């Protein structure tokens, strides 16, 4: 199973924001997308998901161009985890997760018992089964983020696109959410593309890293190759040192600002 982006250009109306993006991931891969604010990471995601018209290039799932796919068919292959926001109505958590089943229901369909069981199983996978009868608008930000991941998983997609899944989470919740994502990639063989602002997260969790820099520069490769002191300085304009730290799973690279 492979999700491939070929020479994609994205933007709004007559303005191209990013172009010449090519990358691919297989199921069981995780790709971290880095880049400073405003370079067009969100625009790229929206285009990848088909929410914006692509300016050029192709998106392929398992070698097939998705341009003519229905939203429903695309949703069975690729799930989206947005940054969490508060919906206008106080839905129960289980009702929110069950919404992920939409891709597998007909136009007039509503989820049945089987869909609820799938939703519950997904909540258990993410170890948040205890939330199912809670009110979505009343749980914490970290819990909401996990519920949105659960909703995307209930879709049973092969790939997940995550927009800054750790934004606005406290330190502990960041690690918990990332560990769950890591588990999904390794145990459930989901392919993940996520944006982050922390190179360290890419070192810890990603098998591939892509960086969109200013002036539309784009690189993709293994974390060690792409995230270098020189390149971070170039892209973010700050001086950093990359050092190795002993962790439970061997040495880990971290980058530390030095100036």
């Amino acid at each position, binding site marked *: 199973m492979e999700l491939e982006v070929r020479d994609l250009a994205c933007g709004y109306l007559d303005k191209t924001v990013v172009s010449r993006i090519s990358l691919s991931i297989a199921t069981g891969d995780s790709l971290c997308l880095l880049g400073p604010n405003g370079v067009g990471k969100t625009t790229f995601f929206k285009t990848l998901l088909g929410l914006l018209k692509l300016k050029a290039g192709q998106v392929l799932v398992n070698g097939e161009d998705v341009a003519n796919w229905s939203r429903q068919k695309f949703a069975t292959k690729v799930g989206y985890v947005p940054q969490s*926001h508060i*919906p206008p109505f106080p839905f129960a958590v289980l009702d929110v997760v069950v919404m992920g089943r939409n891709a597998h229901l007909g*136009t007039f369909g*509503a989820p049945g018992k089987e869909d*609820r069981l799938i939703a519950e199983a997904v909540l258990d996978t993410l170890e948040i089964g205890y939330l199912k009868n809670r009110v979505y608008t009343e749980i914490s930000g970290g819990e909401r983020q996990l519920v949105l991941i659960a909703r995307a998983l209930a879709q049973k997609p092969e790939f997940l696109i995550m927009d800054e899944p750790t934004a606005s989470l406290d330190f502990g919740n960041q690690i918990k959410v990332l560990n769950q994502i890591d588990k999904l990639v390794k145990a459930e063989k989901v392919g993940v593309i996520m944006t982050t602002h922390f190179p360290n997260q890419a070192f810890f969790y990603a098998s591939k890293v892509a960086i969109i820099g200013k002036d539309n520069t784009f690189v993709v490769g293994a974390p060690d190759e792409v995230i270098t002191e020189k390149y971070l300085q170039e892209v973010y304009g700050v001086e950093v040192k990359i050092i190795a730290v002993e962790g439970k799973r061997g040495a880990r690279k971290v980058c530390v600002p030095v100036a």
Partner: protein
Amino acid sequence: MAQLIMKRTVLTDRAKLQMIAALLVLVCFASFFVGRYPVEPDAVLGIMAAKLFWLPHAWSGDMETVVMTVRLPRILAALLVGAALSASGAAYQGMFRNPMVSPGILGVSAGASFGAALAILLSLDFIWIQFAAFGFGLAAVAVTYLASTKLSKSRDTMLVLILAGIIVGTVFTSFVSLIKFLADPLDKLPTITFWLMGGLSTVNLSDIGMIVIPIMAGLIVLILLRWKLNVMSFGDEEAQALGVNTGRLRCVVIFCATLITASAVSVSGIIGLVGLIVPHLTRLVVGPNYKVLLPASVMMGAIFLLVVDNFSRILWSVEIPLGILTSIIGAPIFMYLLLTSQRGWTS
């Protein structure tokens, strides 16, 4: 254990719907013997049953007239109009992700009443009153929606939508005033004015025959699509990523909600606040899941309007127009809801 809890919540939803349905039947039945002319409950049952079977007539001809030609059309009209306004309010709220909207606030009612007033002014048939009400109702909601999407560069789409609706409503209301200004003060003006106050006192069975098909058709489509409204309330992008064709769904839902509102307005005039309050009250009882909320709102709307209409018939010797009464009763209820139900109202 987990299974057990889930079963219980599913059951309680069903039980709640059954209780609301039972209440609806009870209120319907009771409404037949509410009124100035006394009719006994057993006579009501007899008159009803006699339409289906041959029965000895143990009631007067006057009673039969009161039940079948005065009260029955009125009860049917209250059920249909209440259900229509409440269901469209609930649908608009999900579609626009905004618990504060209703046919009234989006300008649909004002647009529809302009259409209907125009048709009355031009002495057109009832079918044209309906068409005009629907056409201008749809135009109003389209203008409101397009204006709000163009204006909401800032994030506060909820407020912009409401303000756009108020402006569109105001424009159509002033068009209605213009029509009143132009209308013949001896003939058309009183008809339009009285009709605008909102009421069911002049409804007859043929009026109901005209609205029952569009209202039932719209309600059935909304009920079939109801679960998708949950997904829509998370916003277009998320709904699309979940596999919903949002453009098509939005068109169908707005079309149906506007059709049933305009059909209701064409017989009842403006009946305020039902579409705003009843879905809220219903949400307090059954929760926000549209799978249960929409059918419950349909029934609660019917119950609410029937009860208020019964009061309008019996409270004073002169009948108070229903639209005035729903606003007087609805406003404090709405204030109370604003003050107490903070859940899910933020952002």
